[in-house]
């Protein structure tokens, strides 16, 4: 089996850095290339969102292939919101055929929150079922229904965790469940409330979960006070503590302060036992990623043959 770059980095024990790209509401390849170009060389893999917040955008798999052409490793996000198990498994095979190796399993925001609120929410599988299905396809060469595949596929299976969603006490157990289902790595929701994340990780370590899976912590650089407030109020399961909003409010140069906060957070995350890397979500602000990665002492990125 050939491993993805992300898998190699995580297995080497290096602190991983992943980026994120939101495909455009158009079919413009050059727009994708332009955004992605900022990330090249500064991250180990780039997440490509799958119609995030239920907004119609270029498909993640097609975008992933464009990144591969640019020499950037994609991590395809795949939700269960829009496709049933037939379409999902077909897309997994298609992604593999295109050379995509990382797949991140998500449930997907409810369609009523997006730009097609009258859509049918599919949810034939749930995110846990998707993880199990990918594992079955990879390790047993078998589809969900039991039919055999003709040949194996190489995929590195990712899942998400939201330490800030409720019920808080249950969240580490849900992470354990995702590991049991077959997740190789985990990317978390954006962290602003470091204290709550620390408590979450404490419980994760008590359960020994950090030894069974690579946990990549999510951060996002804030651009403005409004962005912080928006996330607090409109992004499902996101907590932005008042002290962060205050700091942004008092800052003269909001963007610079947002970057400072992000860099400080990465420095902090590096010290938490069980955190294997950082996932930097700077969607539509990709050009800031090189500065954050460099200032956080994470450049250059490890290279493998």
């Amino acid at each position: 089996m050939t491993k993805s770059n992300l898998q190699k980095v995580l297995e080497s024990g290096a602190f991983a850095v992943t980026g994120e790209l939101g495909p455009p509401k158009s079919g413009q390849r050059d727009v994708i290339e332009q955004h992605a170009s900022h990330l090249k060389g500064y991250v180990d893999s780039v997440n490509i969102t799958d119609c995030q917040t239920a907004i119609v955008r270029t498909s993640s798999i097609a975008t992933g292939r464009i990144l591969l052409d640019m020499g950037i490793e994609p991590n395809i996000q795949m939700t269960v919101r829009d496709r049933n198990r037939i379409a999902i498994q077909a897309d997994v095979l298609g992604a593999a055929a295109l050379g995509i190796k990382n797949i991140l399993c998500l449930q997907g925001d409810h369609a009523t929150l997006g730009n097609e609120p009258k859509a049918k929410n599919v949810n034939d599988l749930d995110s846990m079922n998707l993880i199990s299905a990918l594992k079955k396809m990879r390790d047993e060469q078998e589809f969900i229904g039991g039919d055999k595949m003709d040949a194996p596929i190489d995929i590195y299976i990712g899942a998400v965790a939201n330490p800030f969603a409720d019920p808080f006490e249950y969240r580490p157990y849900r992470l354990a469940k995702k590991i049991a289902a077959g997740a190789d790595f985990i990317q978390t929701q954006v962290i602003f409330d470091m204290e709550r994340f620390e408590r979450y990780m404490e419980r994760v370590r008590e359960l020994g979960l950090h030894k069974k899976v690579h946990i990549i912590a999510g951060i996002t650089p804030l651009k403005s006070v409004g962005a912080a407030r928006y996330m607090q109020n409109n992004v499902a399961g996101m907590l932005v503590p008042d002290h962060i909003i205050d700091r942004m409010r008092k800052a003269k140069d909001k963007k610079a302060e947002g970057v400072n906060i992000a860099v400080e957070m990465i420095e902090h995350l590096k010290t938490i036992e069980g955190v294997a890397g950082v996932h930097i979500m700077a969607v539509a602000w990709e050009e800031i990623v090189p500065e954050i990665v460099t200032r956080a002492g994470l450049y250059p990125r490890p290279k493998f043959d």
Partner: protein
Amino acid sequence: MIVADRKPLAEILKNIEPYKKVLILGCGECVTVCMTGGDKEARETALALSIARKKANNPVEVKSHTVERQCEPEYLESARHLVEEADVVVSLACGVGIQNMNQYYADKRTLPGVNTTFMGMPVEQGVWTENCLGCGNCVLDETMGICPIARCSKSMLNGPCGGSQNGKCEVSKDTECAWHLIVERMMKFNKLEALQEVKEPKDWSTSHHGGPRKMIREDVRL
């Protein structure tokens, strides 16, 4: 019970525009209990329609009547005389009753006067919630009596998703997160370990996704 919501008067008016004699037919079961299509609502609807048509200079004769149970053929016969003398029937029963009427009185059209919304129950005066989707494969034994198929917005078998906050669903602050309730109840009964089992993908073939369903009971057939 089956919960329904009366269609806006304007929509009913538009549908009955070509007709001069209209029968509003209520049902004595679920729609009576949810205060949408019982005898009282049938009378009110009839009155409202005739006033509106009078105002529009297009008077109509509207009668109302209620049968005990519109979803079973044997209860429809009692309305024969009224149905026959009307140009059209507007049923305030659920979708089952409306179809039964169209089938039983096949020479007459019966139009829907309500939107059938869900299978549910009253939680307080004037508030009803959805509780069952009739998926044909009940999981309430595994989920502490709270249905994740009907009450989780994403019908998850391995919830809760990352959108659950303060016990509410990401879809609306007015909607309880079913999985929050399930986890709480599991904790109360010391059954959290049961939640650690990864549930297999649901077999949707027993639900509507397997095609329209039919139940045949050989033991009670004549």
